[in-house]
């Protein structure tokens, strides 16, 4: 699309570095500037960008890159390493409870993809490990939220516990968990209504559900297209609920998905899965390295190193 990836940006910046025996402070500043821009254009939060650029810069200076044999290559390597470190080096699996059921609570802003992703994850566990999940319809606010979850349940052949819209969600969860106990379901998904992190009353409702259900995972579901606000959202939900994992949705679009980096940076919580479409099979485990190159618009780090 309209934005240049870091590959092009760095190639341009580094053309200037090449052939010089020594790199000046000004050259390094130019390179850092390109890195900063690429991250901002990818929607990485600006405070996160600042810290990242500083880290890379400090390492570059500390590593005596300025005197080094091939400074451009070294900078690219540092960027790659730091980014991978920030994204979490390896994939993090789903937390599982030692005794059934493993309870997974889905939380997030309106329209992020909680209901769809609950279905995808239930479906994933069904196919992967022959699991017998139950989904609890605890969104009593959004029009036809229950119909939506019931339809999803039918699509993947997973039962849905619902009590209509006139019961307090905490009570719905209580009775839903009792049913899961009785039926020996090994996984329980709690589909909660979308809400703003600044909505105290609704955030308290989530805290009450958490206190009651003691979930194994609290998954913060985030739209990959989110801009600078991703930090406020992630902090808001994490401060209130101490989430255990993040799921990034709608990565089948053409967004760079810089929100992923921001969320990692401010919460330190692992991104566990990504949504890549509307179908129940469109779920993948999170690959930190792929996300890193996507954010930066860098196809292949190695080839970039070879070219410079």
């Amino acid at each position: 699309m309209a934005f240049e990836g870091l590959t092009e940006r760095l190639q341009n910046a580094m053309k200037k570095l090449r052939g010089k025996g020594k790199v000046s402070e000004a050259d390094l500043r130019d390179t850092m500037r390109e890195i900063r821009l690429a991250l901002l254009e990818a929607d990485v939060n600006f405070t996160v960008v600042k810290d990242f650029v500083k880290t890379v810069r400090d390492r570059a200076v500390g590593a005596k890159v300025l005197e080094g044999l091939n400074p451009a290559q070294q900078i690219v390597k540092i960027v790659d390493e730091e980014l991978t470190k920030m994204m979490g080096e390896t994939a993090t699996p789903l937390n599982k409870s030692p005794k059934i059921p493993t309870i997974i609570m889905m939380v997030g802003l309106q329209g992020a993809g909680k209901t769809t992703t609950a279905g995808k994850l239930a479906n994933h566990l069904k196919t992967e490990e022959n699991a017998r999940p139950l989904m609890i319809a605890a969104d009593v606010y959004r029009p036809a939220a229950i119909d939506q979850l019931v339809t999803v349940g039918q699509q993947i052949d997973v039962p849905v516990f619902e009590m209509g819209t006139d019961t307090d969600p905490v009570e719905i969860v209580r009775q839903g968990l009792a049913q899961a106990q009785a039926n020996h379901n090994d996984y329980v998904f709690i589909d909660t209504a979308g809400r703003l992190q600044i909505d105290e009353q609704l955030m308290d409702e989530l805290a009450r559900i958490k206190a009651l259900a003691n979930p194994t995972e609290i998954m913060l579901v985030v739209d990959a297209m989110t801009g600078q606000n991703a930090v406020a959202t992630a902090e808001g939900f994490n401060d209130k609920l101490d989430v255990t994992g993040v799921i990034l949705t709608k990565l089948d679009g053409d967004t760079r998905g810089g929100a992923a980096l921001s969320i990692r940076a401010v919460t330190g919580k692992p991104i566990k899965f990504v949504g890549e479409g509307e179908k129940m099979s469109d779920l993948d485990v999170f690959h930190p390295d792929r996300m890193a190159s996507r954010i930066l618009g860098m196809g292949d780090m190695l080839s970039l190193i070879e070219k410079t």
Partner: protein
Amino acid sequence: EKSRHTFGERLNHLLANFRSVDEDFFDELEETLIGADVGYDMAMQISDQLREEVKLQNVKKSKDVKNVVVQKLIELYDAAGADEHTGLKMAEQGPTVILFVGVNGVGKTTTIGKMANRFKQEGQKVLLAAADTFRAGAIQQLNVWAERDGVDIVKKPEQSDPSAVVFDALKKAKAENYDILFVDTAGRLQNKANLMNELAKMKRVITREVPDAPHEVLLVLDATTGQNALNQAKLFKDTTDVSGIVLTKLDGTARGGIVLAIRNELHLPVKYVGLGEQVDDLRPFVPSEFIYGLFKGLIDVD
């Protein structure tokens, strides 16, 4: 109003920390604008213009810079859309048809629910077309809104051809003298060519049945979206000739600053803003309010 202080406050903080206007000031200003999602290019453009202005007016104190910032931003916003129509275009005769488009989960169906209620209150005969036959529960969701609003709805079973729903709704709207028809479509990402073609087809069906329709094609954008909103606006505009924007979820902490960039590059006006999930949480867009909203904390100070 329940929305947005942060940007103004941040800018305020920024200004308080600079006794004189130097290059660092502009660096920080750029970041502040970027923090509101106005985008990198737009932030640069604004700060460049401000640099000029500050030089021109020989502004030294941060307090005076504030005023220049606000002035300039309103000017910029207005310039990009001089003499454009911010209201809704209505049919001269026969039903007005409004098509809603946008990516997944931005608030299309909810906005229709809110808007249908407005028109119904104004005494218009309103019809809804449930042309999202794809997403689980989408038809029921629009149906709940139709019941709440007390308006009629045309629907077909799930997985029906959405163009067929549109066709039926248009026939009904004409035959039974409805004043306005709202067409709800399934969310789709702008990079999915087949889904975008489906949308173009729906639009063609509308025009075939009612030659001057659709009277409006409203692109619904989520205010929390970052730079991707620009891609959304571009590609939906290419396929469906978008006539305006509804900016939703402005009740959160997001500023929706991306609208400035969209405005600047694509000249699409925002027509309504969504400020919550309830039926009354929809307002016509007032540009000066939006800009003041961005700078609320800033302006309140003096």
